[in-house]
């Protein structure tokens, strides 16, 4: 028996058009806490999905060796049967069921006649809750306890499955400091009981606190594994961003003019939990012809800031001021925001951006239909012509504009979304993850479009979790952490290292 509980050897996983993982090797020793680090989209979650059987054997190449035996998981239940349990970032609990019911979901404690034995269910659940240090009644409903406690319920559920290898995907992303500390202590406590853990995290201080080794993943490759004694923040950051920012970005010569938009003291709270501040006194500005980046990790409040600004589409108790060309404007509704020359292209184009059952034409005209009205009626022919012009100028690959947007590739869908907003004739465009889920070639085209917008005198705000992208296209970059602006860098002074440092900065408490 080797000391390794898990060896992933030469794992390669491709999606159509994208190589998500290439030849990744990961060794995890028995009884250690192993951290995996990397930027968003680097391939960490994909690797864990391969390991847990979400992507079944046969959809990837390479071998997984678990407890000295090559395993071929076809589904999550296969990996769970071996003692590998993954806890996803978005918790998989049913809010209306009790803690005990959730723990034993699909593993129900049965008694006579195959009926559920509620006494056994609740008493076993109570024992598990004691092990994770959660003092709650097993019959309490999940919706009545906080996120931190829900995370513990997930771990109790994992324990009920006799877990040997516990995988936690950004477990503290949604937790406050106390809950985070408790969770990290619990991971160390479980380690004492012989349970191995893999923890995916961005937070460098918590990695240093709990992990025995760190593997850094970048662009689908495992860069290196660092033992605990050698872990330094600088080394991790250097591995995460890499040194070569290849020539993946079109040339951009900024021609920056007057300030177009300025936001002052913008604050927003969570829509349900109205005491939780999500956007924290944000101040920022964008000038004509300028491309401004907002760098922040997932959960930093980037999208929430943009959407709360764009007609209060997110949040509650929103306060702050918006100035356009120095005059205060209101953006209380989306219509008002659009009328004031602001456009917001969402990060989730399928859910929030497109009407997938409609054609390109009607999607392009959706935000500015009034421009096509002649004598009270929409002019179809002109609409066709407008859409066709965008199809040509944006290089949307479709035989004509009557093709349903649901049939287009991600890159072409994104071009339709951008066309829609450009046709609304805005002065400021907020582009939220404009290249997410798009292949490299289409990314270049999107960057070119962004450059053209800036060259036309528009102000462009790009929200992205890919640092190379921001460094490649922006003139100025703000960093956002925990809802607050933590730094502002002209492109000349911005380096990946300083950005990451400010993106992971935690508030003084």
């Amino acid at each position, binding site marked *: 028996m080797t000391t390794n509980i898990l060896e992933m050897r030469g794992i390669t996983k491709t999606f159509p058009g994208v190589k998500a993982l290439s030849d990744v090797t990961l060794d995890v020793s028995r009884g250690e806490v192993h951290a995996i680090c990397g930027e968003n989209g680097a391939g960490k979650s994909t690797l864990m999905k391969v390991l847990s059987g979400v992507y079944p054997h046969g959809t990837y190449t390479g071998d997984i060796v678990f407890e000295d035996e090559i395993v071929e998981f076809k589904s999550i239940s296969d990996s769970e049967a071996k003692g590998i349990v993954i806890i996803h970032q978005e918790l998989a609990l049913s809010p209306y069921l009790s803690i005990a019911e959730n723990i034993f979901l699909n593993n129900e404690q049965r008694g006579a006649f195959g009926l559920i034995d509620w006494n056994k269910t609740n008493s076993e659940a109570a024992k598990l809750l004691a092990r994770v240090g959660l003092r709650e009644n097993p019959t309490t409903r999940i919706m009545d306890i906080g996120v931190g406690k829900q995370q513990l319920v997930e771990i109790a559920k994992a324990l009920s499955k006799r877990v040997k290898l516990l995988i936690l995907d950004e477990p503290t992303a949604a937790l406050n400091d106390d809950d985070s500390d408790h969770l990290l202590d619990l991971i160390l406590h479980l380690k004492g009981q012989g349970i191995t853990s893999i923890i995916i995290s961005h937070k460098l201080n918590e990695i240093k606190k709990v992990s025995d080794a760190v593997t850094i993943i970048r662009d689908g490759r495992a860069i290196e594994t660092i033992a605990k004694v050698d872990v330094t923040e600088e080394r991790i950051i250097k591995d995460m961003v890499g040194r070569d920012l290849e020539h993946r970005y079109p040339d951009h010569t900024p021609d920056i003019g007057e300030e177009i938009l300025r936001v002052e003291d913008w604050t927003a709270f969570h829509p349900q939990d109205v005491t939780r501040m999500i956007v924290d006194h944000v101040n920022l500005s964008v000038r004509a012809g300028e491309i401004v980046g907002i760098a922040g990790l997932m959960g930093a409040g980037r999208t929430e800031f943009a959407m709360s600004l764009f007609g209060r589409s997110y949040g509650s108790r929103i306060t702050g001021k918006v100035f356009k060309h120095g005059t205060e404007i209101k953006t209380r*509704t989306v219509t008002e925001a659009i009328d004031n020359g602001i456009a917001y292209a969402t990060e989730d184009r399928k859910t929030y951006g*497109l009407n997938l059952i409609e054609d390109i034409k009607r999607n392009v005209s*959706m935000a500015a239909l009034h421009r096509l009205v002649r004598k009270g009626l*929409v002019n179809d022919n002109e609409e066709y012509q407008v859409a066709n012009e965008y199809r040509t100028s944006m290089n949307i690959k479709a*035989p004509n504009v009557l093709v349903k947007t*649901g049939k287009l590739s991600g890159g072409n869908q994104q071009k339709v979304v951008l066309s829609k907003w450009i046709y609304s004739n805005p002065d400021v465009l907020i582009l939220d993850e404009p290249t997410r889920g798009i292949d490299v070639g289409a990314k270049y085209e999107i960057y070119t479009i962004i450059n053209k917008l800036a060259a036309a005198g528009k102000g462009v705000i790009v929200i992205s979790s890919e640092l190379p992208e921001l460094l490649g296209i922006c003139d100025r970059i703000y960093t956002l952490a925990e809802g607050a602006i933590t730094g502002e860098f002209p492109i000349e002074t911005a380096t990946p290292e300083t950005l990451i440092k400010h993106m992971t900065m935690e508030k003084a408490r």
Partner: protein
Amino acid sequence: MSDQETTPATGGLVNPSENKATSWLSHVLADLGKNGIFIALVLVVVLFTVLTDGILLRPQNISNLIVQNGYILVLAIGMVMVIVAGHIDLSVGSVAAFVGACSGVFAVQWGLPWWLAIIMSLGIGALVGVWQGFWIAYVGIPAFIVTLAGMLIFRGLALVVLGNTNIGSFPAEYRALGNGFLTDVFGEFDLDPLTLGVGLIAVIALIVQQVRTRLGRSKYGQEVEPLVWFVTKLVLITAALGFFAYALASYKGIPVTLIVLAVLVLIYGVVMNRTVFGRHIYAIGGNRHAAELSGIKNRKVDFYLFVNMGVLAALAGLIFTARLNLAGPKAGDGFELEAISAAFIGGAAVQGGIGTVGGAIIGGLIIGVLNNGMSILGIGIEWQQAVKGLVLLLAVAFDVYNKRRSGGH
């Protein structure tokens, strides 16, 4: 369906050496695919014409088909709009009964002039829509629940208004709404000249409109269908319209209900396709979030949709009451289900975003022909119900199958 749309589209780029007949055929097939519901109506008509030895297409029966189904068709127009936006309205039958009862009070018990009674009744329909629209759009209660409640509320209120009796004997002008005919204005002929004239005008208007659309499209560089097929279609439609006008002319002339319907179809066809409001309905039904983030005022659109539905339900109630010359407690029973069936048979999607006024009308006519044809054949009401249920199920199943085959998302 979509793959059929993309296939002919490349036709514009096809080099001239390619077989012209193939591209012609692909156009015809694509059109037939798009108008599957129209073909279904033709098939049902042919089937029952054969089964009933031609009784179905007798002038009197054609006239009856319109008059007997007018109120369902009026409801189907509003219903398809509600369904496109992703809602449903279960209350329309009860609202029709309630408004019918109110109109009885106005026109018969209070003896108000017929036109005032009609206007007030439509106003009550609008108020009902305001009530339901408020709960749906501004409070956020699902339309299914609000209109289920409305179904009970307005049925109850109808009984309250009627006070356990029927109200009957409406003024003649009021009754015309349900069983009046526009005829004999030029004296008595075997074939009513007015009806034929209107038919002729309708045919000319249709041809002019089609030609104008075609010219407009080619002017803007859009691809148009082959001329031969375009002309063939026009000839077929002209023939159908001509036969229809002939049938009406040789019976009693143009039913008033048909005039009301024709006006509604024209207005709402334009509303759904050419106005900002109509486009917003499709946008909301297709993706509510995306619509909202595109600056569309979802709540306002939802609200006015239900106000509109309330008015149309009121109109349907008036037509039905006028036809029976009686406002009774059982009026409007099951109307909502026929109207919903019409919309779905006519191609509306259960998830919203898809559906047309024309489709809903044809869906309603299919139900009407089924009702009428089976009645002529002497099939009992119990089997009629079962057959209609089966047709609804098959129509939607066909739609789902079609979407899956074309790889819709």
